[in-house]
């Protein structure tokens, strides 16, 4: 009864296997195939609440410029509310359906978005997810982004390798997450802890706290950990607050002794990477996350081209002082 469309429902080829995953070679560089006869409108539902999204939005806008010549427009829409919760993005999807977009790309921060995705697909609007999506399957066509759990595993492996190379067999690590109540943060933490323990069974986790994604909390909690664990070896920061954490390490003149591991390539993070306070940060090709969903959706609409796999994973590059120049000029 809901989501009735005035336009006829488009005939579309079936999507790829849901759980199949690859890291595509053309990640971030996928290009449109052919011009569309009728104008095509694609909504990209993103966020702007922190600097992580800068390159994502750049990607979406770049896609818009490329597709302009192919008779398509890309609208970058930020739903109200600072978070990627289902109620925020769900209502944005509903609104996009009501506005008769031809395709929707959305962040799928928690599984609550699934019913909205189903509604869109039922209305003949293909949906791509990007940045995050949860384990729970939906009828979305494909996903572009990092697998958070795998990102956690990667971090655990990288941290373990780091301490092995330093000859420390029982590193003491403090774990900071954004929110205990955000599933994505918990997935990263889970992956990290599992793989760390597997790689270095002697590792000790001296505490798990939440920063509420804020740097001042990161600073405070890191200071507290430093005081109460004089033999601390490192911090793992699963979400926001990494910069505050690194600043606390720096202020206590523990750079090189207490190592910080975190995610993403914000300016401030990269500064600490340069200084060696942040030993490594794990990226996820944010530009591709903004760019690829729109272009791949367009190709699907005009040429019926189906992505190779359900999960088009971006690369979880482990960026350190040594290799950082390959990933941008910081």
């Amino acid at each position, binding site marked *: *009864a*809901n*989501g*009735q469309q005035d336009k006829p429902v488009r005939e579309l080829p079936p999507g790829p296997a849901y759980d199949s995953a690859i890291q595509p070679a053309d990640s971030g560089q996928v290009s449109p195939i052919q011009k569309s006869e009728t104008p095509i409108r694609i909504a990209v539902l993103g*966020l*702007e*609440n922190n600097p992580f999204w800068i390159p994502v939005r750049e990607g979406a806008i770049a896609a818009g410029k490329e597709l302009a010549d192919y008779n398509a427009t890309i*609208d970058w*829409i*930020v*739903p*109200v*509310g600072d*978070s990627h*919760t*289902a*109620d925020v993005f*769900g*209502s*944005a999807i*509903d*609104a*996009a*359906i*009501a*506005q*008769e977009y031809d395709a929707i790309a959305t962040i799928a921060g*928690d*599984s*609550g*978005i*699934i*019913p909205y995705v189903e509604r869109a697909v039922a209305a003949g609007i293909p949906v791509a997810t990007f940045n995050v999506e*949860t384990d*729970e399957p939906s009828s979305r066509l494909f996903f572009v982004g990092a697998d958070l759990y795998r990102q956690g595993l990667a971090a655990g492996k990288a941290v373990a390798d780091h301490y092995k190379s330093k000859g420390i067999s029982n590193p003491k690590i403090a774990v900071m997450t954004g*929110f*205990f*109540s*955000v*599933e994505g943060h*918990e*997935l990263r*933490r*889970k992956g990290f802890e*599992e793989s760390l323990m597997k790689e270095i069974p002697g590792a000790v986790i001296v505490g798990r706290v939440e920063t509420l994604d804020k740097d001042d909390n990161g600073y405070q909690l890191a200071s507290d950990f430093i005081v109460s664990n004089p033999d601390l070896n490192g911090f793992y920061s699963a979400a926001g607050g990494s910069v505050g954490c690194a600043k606390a390490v720096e202020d206590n003149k523990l750079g090189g002794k207490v190592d910080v591991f975190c995610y993403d390539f914000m300016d401030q993070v990269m500064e600490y990477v340069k200084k060696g306070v942040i030993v490594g940060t794990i990226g996820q090709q944010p530009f591709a996350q903004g760019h690829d969903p729109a272009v791949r959706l367009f190709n699907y609409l005009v040429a019926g081209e189906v992505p190779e796999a359900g999960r088009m994973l971006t690369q979880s590059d482990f960026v350190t002082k040594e290799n950082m120049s390959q990933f941008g000029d910081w």
Partner: protein
Amino acid sequence: MVSENAYVETEKITILSRIKNTTLPGESGVFAALMVMCIIMSIASPYFLKTVNIFNIMRNMSTIGIMAIGMTMIIVTGGIDLSVGSQMAVAGMIMARMLQNGFPIVPSLIIGFGMGLLTGFFNGFMISRLKVTPFIVTLGMLSIARGMTVFFATGTKGVGVASNITVKDPFVNFVGGGYIGPIPFPVIIMFVLVFIFSYFLKNTVLGRQIYAIGSNEEAARLTGVNVDRVKVLTYTFMGFLCALSGIISAGLLSTAATNIGTGTELDVVAAVVIGGASLSGGRGSIAGSIIGAAIMAVLRNSFVLLKMPGYMQTISIGAIIILAVTIDTLRQRKQ
């Protein structure tokens, strides 16, 4: 003696003010604000007035609207409940966990509602019997219930990690995401509750006692109102409505999320205050609160329809809330 003429004039004025009075005294101002917003939006976007969109807006406001019913009562008594978002989350989560662990729907629902009643009762008990200020009790509960939500969500996928729980029960999914005709079911629940409890507040002894307490607690006590009992009831009822909202949300999203309802307390309180209630108690109406919730829902919807940049949304939602209430305040002062 006052002259005949003066009488006539007075009569005229009172009839006028009577008309004003019967048509929603506190509410007419915000209702006008809502209407203005709707008119502007229907000009600005061709999609706004589509049936789907209107029902989307209503569904999106339904959990806030349902909780606003209880919040209206609490605010009318002069209290506040900051824990509604967390209460909602924990009730939905415990129900989902029960279902996931293989319990049938009925006991799961009973435990879910029971959790809401329990957290609400705890608030009411601390506030009325131990006389701890509502702000502190419910701020504490905001944290406690959120912690409990995480606790109930922990361990379902791997040790010591919280995760959202999928809800696949057809009844719950219908309650949250079903339709009757074109109308989403939660919208129907909301309106039914609004009518029942508007009537309740106006026409029952208990309803009137709620206003008496907020207007002058000591006088209410001396007039025979069992103040403590009434307060416990309102907070417990709030807990019940939170549980209902939590279950609706879990049904709609097919998920009980650990972070559902964060920050919702400010939305619900804002809806009630925009709707004309006074935080010092004694004034407020459910109709007004629903209008308040609708204003915020229309606002959110229109940002998406108008593709407004992020920071402009944040700025304008603040500005419009202030504006709506300012106009209403000035209008009331003039009278």
